[in-house]
């Protein structure tokens, strides 16, 4: 009973948290699923988005301007990873690690210090909800509205001529080249799109927790990946709608699982370990299933 009431207390916040992380989960899904190109840059673009937004708010800009510049910064960072990968022929994972390492310094340069508090500034939550930033459930509702908009845009874009071509490049580069697609530019654009989503997620996060911190990206990749995998298990990947919905549903469910675990008395610091084990199990599942099938 006590566990249930603890969980119910956590529910509104965990829903809002899941919605916050849905953006970066989308930003992780794009390279892994649409481009078939594993990429870690989100660990750097997420705090980049937060740093840009916090700095702009502190400098007197409004939250929308902050979000737009954060998106632009994310595109540049994602594009940088793609260019390093393509021009210098460095594996995409390593290219991403190089960029996220460099972003650590850049993010501190942007803020002028390792973190920036924005308690005293207007955010999308204070502007659109109420002066204290709104209750968790209304934050959740607002975020879901934004998520629906973002997913709608993504769905539309992936059905345009350029979007279909981007998915084609992700599915088969040799065929796409042979059909006249400059595949390199599509990969730059695709990782730019992923960077935009992750940075947007970081900028939302900064407003949600009222500060940006250079370390806020640590672990977001695995959270995004776990969300994507979880969501895919729940809604499937057969159609584009499902593939886009998966990271969102996954992020929401992931933070419910976390809330339950916390209600059961788990140490918050053990969370990463469990998330890692979960991702490991899902990645190993096909291999284990094959072994089991062979043994029979």
């Amino acid at each position: 009973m006590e566990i249930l009431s603890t969980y119910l207390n956590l529910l509104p916040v965990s829903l809002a948290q899941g919605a916050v992380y849905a953006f970066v989960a989308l930003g992780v899904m794009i390279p892994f699923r649409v481009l078939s190109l594993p990429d870690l840059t989100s660990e750097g673009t997420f705090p980049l988005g937060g740093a840009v937004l916090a700095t702009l708010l502190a400098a007197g800009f409004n939250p929308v301007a902050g979000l737009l510049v954060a998106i632009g910064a994310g595109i540049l960072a994602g594009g940088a990873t793609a260019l390093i990968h393509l021009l210098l022929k460095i594996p995409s994972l390593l290219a991403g690690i190089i960029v996220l390492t460099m972003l650590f310094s850049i993010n501190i340069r942007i803020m002028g210090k390792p973190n920036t508090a924005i308690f005293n500034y207007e955010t999308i939550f204070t502007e659109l909800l109420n002066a204290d930033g709104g209750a968790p459930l209304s934050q959740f509702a607002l975020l879901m509205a934004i998520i629906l908009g973002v997913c709608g845009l993504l769905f539309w874009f992936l059905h345009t001529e350029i979007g279909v071509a981007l998915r084609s490049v992700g599915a088969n580069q040799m065929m796409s080249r042979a059909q006249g697609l400059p595949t390199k530019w599509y990969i730059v654009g695709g990782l730019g799109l992923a960077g935009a989503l992750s940075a947007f997620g970081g900028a939302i996060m900064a407003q949600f927790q009222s500060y940006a911190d250079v370390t806020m990206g640590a672990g977001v990749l695995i959270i995004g990946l776990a969300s994507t995998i979880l969501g895919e298990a729940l809604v499937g990947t057969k159609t584009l709608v499902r593939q886009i919905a998966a990271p969102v549903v996954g992020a929401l469910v992931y933070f419910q699982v976390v809330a339950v675990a916390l209600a059961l008395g788990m140490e918050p610091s053990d969370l990463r370990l469990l998330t890692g084990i979960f991702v490991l199990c899902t990645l190993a599942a096909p291999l284990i299933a094959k072994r089991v099938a062979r043994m029979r």
Partner: protein
Amino acid sequence: MDESTYPAIRVEDIRRTFHPGTVQEKKALRGVSFDLRPGEFAVVIGSNGAGKSTLLNALAGEIPVDSGRIVANGTEIQNWPVHRRARLMSRVFQDPMMGTAAALTIEENLSIAARRGQRRSLRFGIRKSEREAFRAKLEMLGLGLENRLSDRVDLLSGGQRQSLTLVMATLKQPQLLLLDEHTAALDPRAAALVMRATTEVVHENATTTLMVTHNMSHAIEFGNRLLMIHEGKVILDASAEEKSKLTAGSLVDRFHDVVSDRMVLS
């Protein structure tokens, strides 16, 4: 030269060595030259490792040449990247999985092919009017794919995928069609279907075609030009008239004659 008399494609002394200066050095193309007139359907034969795939990859731009020229419409294209050459040529690969994007639907694959070599915009990826055209093209295959436009391509068999690739390659008329043993990976029934579809699309628009085949009877039956490649060189270039007199047996004899002559000379 008057434009109408340009060959569809001119290949001049192209050469390509893999791993030069190492123990694995392999001269895959050792000076290949030929012209294809518009509408010519050339069959390319040669033993394994002769350089046939390398030749097609060099034409498409997948493999850069070390020297030599490739000329289309009076323009040298040997330094163009693959995606730029796609304005002029299209191809069907040996592996049925290579020619289509598995995660995309049949109509999405076709929409990519319908815009081969064109600029893409933020307009909707498939237009209604196009769907009708796609259906009509797929109907010609007789595989029922016209009723499965929104099925993902990974649901199709190898033969169906290869047939789709062939439709994609000819949806937008290419100046040169490259086929690399495109029926070799299929079962005999599917291979026959794809071969029949090939002759139909090639003849329909008199498409200039370069078709590599491992199948001697295909080499005799199809096309109006024959190129035999051996160790990176064209060792036999038969015109339509010469080709019509060839039989599978005489081709094998010709091959052995040329090869043993060369051995005597070298």
